[in-house]
């Protein structure tokens, strides 16, 4: 085996510190959401589910929740074809300016979110679609598109191209080869990417802050607005909704493709 006892001690000490750092906010929020008191404090005052009960009575919360769901679904639905096709195009076809195109497709990452958000706010305002909900979904797809392309690229690069050649050799026309060989082969990447896109859109805050108004506010933006005023325990309950959704997404990702996928070397 590699290493000594001191190695394992030092490394695990740092990792345990990481683990505390990573999970502390989550644990504290869950704890705070069960308080019986009217202010957020820790340790919580007593134990009750009253803030969860109140949650379902809040029409604002429910409306914001469903709006967030709606934009996240649009984001996912648009990014699946766009990202999958782009990843296959980049990995499987001879393309001029390959590097330039890659740099271009990384623009959503290299342009700061605050600038992307403002730019789209001005542009959407100019073509008079600002204030509607569907452009928010599209914008969330744009800013996170590299994640989708990444996820599918990993799968395409792992897929033996001889399979596609074999299909063509056996007489499969282009579309059939694509639909019955390439697409099923890259499915793990598509699923990973789609889940990532959904969860990132569900959490996205800054671009949504620019593109929504009081009528179209999404959940992360409304949490942000509440944080800036009085912090009440119902916010902790809302946050727990996020924690639960994140937990479901992690389990789903693990079940469908396995989290170990992210450890694979390129």
């Amino acid at each position: 085996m590699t290493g000594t006892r001191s190695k394992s001690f030092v490394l695990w000490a740092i990792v345990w510190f990481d683990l505390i750092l990573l999970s502390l906010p989550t644990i504290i929020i869950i704890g705070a959401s069960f308080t019986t008191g009217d202010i957020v404090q820790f340790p919580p005052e007593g134990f009750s589910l009253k803030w969860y009960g109140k949650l379902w009575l809040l029409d604002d919360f429910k409306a914001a929740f469903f709006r967030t769901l709606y934009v996240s679904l649009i984001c996912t639905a648009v990014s699946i074809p766009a990202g999958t096709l782009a990843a296959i195009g980049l990995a499987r076809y001879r393309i001029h300016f390959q590097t330039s195109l890659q740099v271009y497709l990384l623009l959503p990452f290299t342009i700061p979110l605050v600038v992307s958000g403002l730019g789209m706010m001005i542009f959407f305002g100019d073509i008079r679609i600002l204030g509607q909900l569907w452009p928010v979904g599209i914008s969330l797809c744009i800013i996170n598109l590299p994640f989708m392309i990444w996820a599918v690229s990993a799968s395409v690069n792992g897929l033996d191209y001889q399979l596609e050649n074999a299909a063509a050799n056996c007489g499969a026309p282009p579309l059939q080869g694509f639909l019955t060989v390439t697409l099923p082969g890259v499915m793990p990447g598509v699923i990973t990417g789609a889940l990532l896109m959904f969860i990132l859109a569900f959490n996205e805050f800054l671009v949504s802050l620019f593109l929504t108004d009081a009528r179209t506010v999404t959940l992360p933006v409304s949490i942000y607005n509440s944080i800036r005023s009085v912090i009440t325990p119902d916010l902790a309950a809302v946050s727990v909704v996020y924690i639960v959704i994140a937990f479901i997404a992690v389990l789903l990702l693990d079940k469908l493709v396995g989290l170990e996928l992210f450890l694979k070397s390129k």
Partner: protein
Amino acid sequence: MTSVKQSSHFPIKWRLLDAAERVAALVWPRQLHSYTGYLLLVPALLLVFVLVIGLIYIGGYSLHELDLANYRLKESFSLTNYYTAVTSTTYRTVVLRSLYGSFLVTVITIFLAFPYAYLMVRAREAMTRKFLLISLFLPFFIGQIVRAYGWLIILGKEGLLNNIVTFFGFSPLELIYNYPAVILGLIQYMLPFAVLLLAPAITAINRDMELASESLGAHWIQTFIHIVLPMAKPGLIGSSVVVFTLTLTDFAMPEILGGGTTDFIANSIYDGFFQLSNSGLGAALSMILVTLGTAFVVVIFSIAGTGTLGFSRRSK
């Protein structure tokens, strides 16, 4: 001729596929097949083009000075906004604070992330690996706003830490709305990104290299410095670029945990647009931020390559 007759006995799926194939051949004939790669890229290129349009708008705004008479941007072109942004000591402080913060967060995050990625990749038990993966993905999927809110409960006046402090008879501390709180929040936010970009690079390191180094008598720290770190270079590049640029351009953590006292560039841009109603100045600051971020990425990439950030193997 019999084949035509037989085709009606084929399953519906086959006939549908054949029909789709004929439509595809009609819309995209064989002569165009060498361009199929470009066709597949079109939707993604168009989507990203929206950002280019946005950037052009911002660039345009930045060249018009605010007319204080009617609070609109003047028609005439000028570089006044850039001049104001560059010469103002307020903005210089903000830019330096953001750059320093990004540097600090990058160094600390990678220091914390490397052992995590290393142990996760090298874990012998599947359970350990799974535990580390889930602990990483859960906060990653919870998002910045909710996590910042968690820190507010921990660090706030009536928060967890102050409750502990007062329990032992000390007076409550000012733990929030300051620079360290922002840095802490950012490190916690960046940690999953860093680990996920480091892990593939560490996976690629052959374990025998470490064994060889240690069997030749190297201390594990020497092995780490001379074997593991250099071989993990693609991951170190990928994670530092992402952590640095995301921190440099972050808005939420300085806003929520800094409470207006420790603005980063993004906060100044926001204030330029919405507090000062000076979209020209905000746009000029935006362009400066884009330039700073791009310059950093370009310099790193041209020195060291794209690391774990490239889309395909060919990019290496």
